[in-house]
């Protein structure tokens, strides 16, 4: 009996210590969505139970190891206890109650974080190897996920190629982006903290999975509305328009504008350059070549790159849009 009392006290103390230690550690990034609250609360509760169960087993074990250690020279056996049905039933029933309670809490929390506000802003999220695009009402497409603070967004997530996963650690929720016509998956998020974050692809999606990130900006409503309005008007500057099409049609998923290497050649400095093709021929990059490269990507392949550019992408573009894109490429010295 005295052993049990001693262990009881030690378990209580250790639990308090472990729980306090866990609370002191920075165990999550900043919370930036309304959904983060209930999720973090549930995780915190999990941690407390973990602290208790960990202490329970460890203290009993270490105590036994110290107190019930075999003394040198003692060859006798321990106490003959085969078990105890009552206690076995107890430690079956009590954990059963606890896990059922946790499952219930989990279901509650899930319902809470999935509640959809009919006023929610809808944003279509498209994933492809290895880029994200975000489409807003009013035919606005962006490579940055701009969101108004304190308004719910309903993300409609899908993928063009393999499985990806939409995750912003600060928002605490993730959803896979799945290819297929009917595979549009919903995710609700209510950002509640102004700031900059990142979408980080959480499902293995091939070579550049690690780099499949996109900026997120949570901003004041007025600022967001202004941005959306500005974006929904077609700019007068052809280069700015080109930039818009490059985002909208996903070119920047494979082409960079700053000279860095990606799936396709960077657009910086290509205009006017003499390029070597895969078949060894040389081509001067001019308007005619660019039009061909966009409308019939397989006609000539740049040396060192695969035939990876979607063959039909040119068909989605109008002649004017192609001209804007060329203007953009020309501007990137």
């Amino acid at each position, binding site marked *: 009996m005295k052993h049990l009392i001693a262990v009881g006290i030690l378990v209580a103390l250790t639990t308090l210590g472990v729980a306090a230690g866990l609370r002191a550690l920075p165990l999550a990034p900043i919370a930036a969505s309304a959904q983060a609250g209930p999720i973090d609360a*549930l995780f915190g509760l999990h941690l407390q139970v973990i602290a208790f169960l960990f202490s329970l*087993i460890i203290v009993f*074990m270490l105590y036994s190891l110290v107190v019930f250690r075999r003394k040198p020279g003692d060859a006798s056996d321990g106490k003959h206890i085969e078990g105890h049905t009552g206690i*076995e039933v107890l430690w079956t029933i009590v954990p059963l109650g606890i896990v059922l309670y946790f499952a219930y809490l989990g279901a509650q929390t899930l319902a809470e974080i999935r509640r959809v506000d009919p006023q929610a802003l809808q944003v279509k999220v498209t994933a492809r190897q290895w880029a994200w695009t975000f489409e807003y009402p009013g035919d606005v497409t962006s490579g940055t996920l701009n969101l108004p603070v304190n308004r719910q967004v309903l993300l409609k997530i899908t993928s063009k190629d393999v499985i990806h996963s939409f995750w912003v650690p600060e928002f605490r929720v993730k959803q*896979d982006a799945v290819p297929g016509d009917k595979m549009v998956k919903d995710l609700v998020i209510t950002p509640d903290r102004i700031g900059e974050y990142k979408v980080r692809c959480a499902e293995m999606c091939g070579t550049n999975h690690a780099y499949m990130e996109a900026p997120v900006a949570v901003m004041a409503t007025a600022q967001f509305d202004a941005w959306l309005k500005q974006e929904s008007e077609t700019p007068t500057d052809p280069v700015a328009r080109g930039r818009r099409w490059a985002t909208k049609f996903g070119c920047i998923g494979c082409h960079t504008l700053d000279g860095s290497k990606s799936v396709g050649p960077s657009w910086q400095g290509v205009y006017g350059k003499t390029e070597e093709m895969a078949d060894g021929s040389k081509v001067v990059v001019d308007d005619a070549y660019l039009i061909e490269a966009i409308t019939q990507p397989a006609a000539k392949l740049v040396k060192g790159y695969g035939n990876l550019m979607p063959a039909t992408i040119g068909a989605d573009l109008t002649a004017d849009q192609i001209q804007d894109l060329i203007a953009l490429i020309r501007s990137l010295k």
Partner: protein
Amino acid sequence: MNFFSLGLARGIGAQIIGTAIGVAFMSIWRAALGMPVNEMEPAAVFGGAVGALAFMFGVGALTDWTRIAFGHAVAEHPAADPSQPTWARYFGVSLDHKVIGIQYGITSVLLLCLAGLFALIFRAELVETGLQFLSPDLYNTLMSLHGIVMIAAILTGVGAMSNYLVPLMIGASDMAFPRLNAFAFWVNIPGALLLLSSLFLGGFDTGWTGYPPLSARAPLGMQFFFMGVYIVGLSSILGGLNIIVTVLTMRAPGMTLFRMPIFVWAAFATALIQLTATQLIGLSFMMVMFQRLFGMGFFDPAKGGNVILFQHLFWFYSHPAVYVFILPGLGIISELLPVFARKPLFGYKWIALSSLAIALIGFFVWAHHMFTSGMEEYLRVPFMYSTLLVAVPTGVKFFSWIGTLWQGKISTPTPMLFVLGGIVVFLLGGLSGPPNGTVATDLQLHDTYWIVGHFHDTMFGGFVFPFFAAIYYWFPKMTGRRMNETLGKLHFYLMTPAFFVMTLGQMFVGLQGMRRRIADYDPAQGLSPTHLVVTVAAFLIATSVLVFLFNLVHSVKSGEVAAGNLWASRSPEWQIPSPAPEHNYAGRPFVVVGEPYDYGLPGAVYLQMGDAATPLPPGHAAAPAE
């Protein structure tokens, strides 16, 4: 001695030749049909399959069956070839379950080292942000191979323990189907070679889960991964079948189910899962193989396929597989605790039935890997309930272990240290499970390093620690010598703290937002210091394993002689000499007359050993009903 008198050498030679013939045949065939010959994949896959079959013929695992098929007689228990040195027996087909058990064990240790080596390479890469010395594709391949080779290592380790121990523990002279047993072991070798060859065939970047559509477009290495897993899975099914039949029909007289050593229960529950679930991973991988080879659109959205279906099929095996990995280890813990606490196993029946309960519930939880996958929303909550239920029988095991230690007379030689370490590590793995099993919190934790930390704890606690415990504990039974205690303790005290640091560090970066399976991470997240610590810890674990390997090799020849019942165990295998004689109890069968774990009860007897003069009924007789 002629090199090619070793079955292994013949097998590998045959596999190389078989592969070449297969490739050539299929290329010519395709050329004759006017199909594009520069498309290497069909020929390569066909070659891989032919090569694996050729290995089995070359090594001699199919010789007896071929002879039987042609009406020739084969020896019931072929004696070892006396012209060969003893070590050579381990490199060719033997029907002795103890030899096969050790063959499994050696394979497992080798694969563990190899998979660990892959991990060390990419752990070094992760020390800093940016790419140090690996390309993203090579990183992805090493990461994927680390996972699947570890799994092959664990499966062969499980095979080692159940093959070596089950017949000895139930008083049988061998497994029920010795030839099938040899086949099931040897097929792992071409399987593992296929897996490893993927490294040289463009690799693959899907991780061990092989999800399409990514796996449908990955390089050729992917197909060799699929084939390798398929073949290793075949071994698992056949091995499981053998264990089930052996346990059900070959127990010593008087050994009722509840008088079996507790490890046998664990092996039996494991075998049930292996026999019934493995088909699903084989099927799901075969479907992707066929999608690639024949254009079947099972998981191709463009052809009306559904990519989520794959995940259901895959996890229907791969969750229960987790219990294949850990149940035998938990059985080892339950088996060794009473010996070193000198007390009966607390709640024997509860522990035995908890293994079955885990195996059973394990079939109804698979979709907890898919909470974020986009499967039907209404599936999430039921699968959360079933998943959390697993905690109940697992808890029973922990509490019963503590009950066993309580008021014992505990001593801590190396095997017991690994048992205790295993309990704590598995505890961490178990406790970090419910947050992922709860849908709401899993939406944050899924596919992060939290999960990586969680399953390294369950795998090490449920397999690696107990496996080491088993090796230190039964090494004398296998060799007649014991392993060096000092080195054993060094191994333990080096590995255990390093391991805690490693997995807790993994969980920590995961909570900070580190995703799984990434070759590089964002400097803005400030994760590098923890990654450095995790990598250092991983190298310390590797160092401790080197100590173990040295001890193992050294002790085979020069270990202290330990012929008798070294640990004062009540279990049958310790009542016969070490190393265990050729046909176990032949000439010395026993009857079970008492309870297995009656330590501390004066006069309690478990077995009555017969001797050659007064033979008891042979070990082959089925146990009478209770």
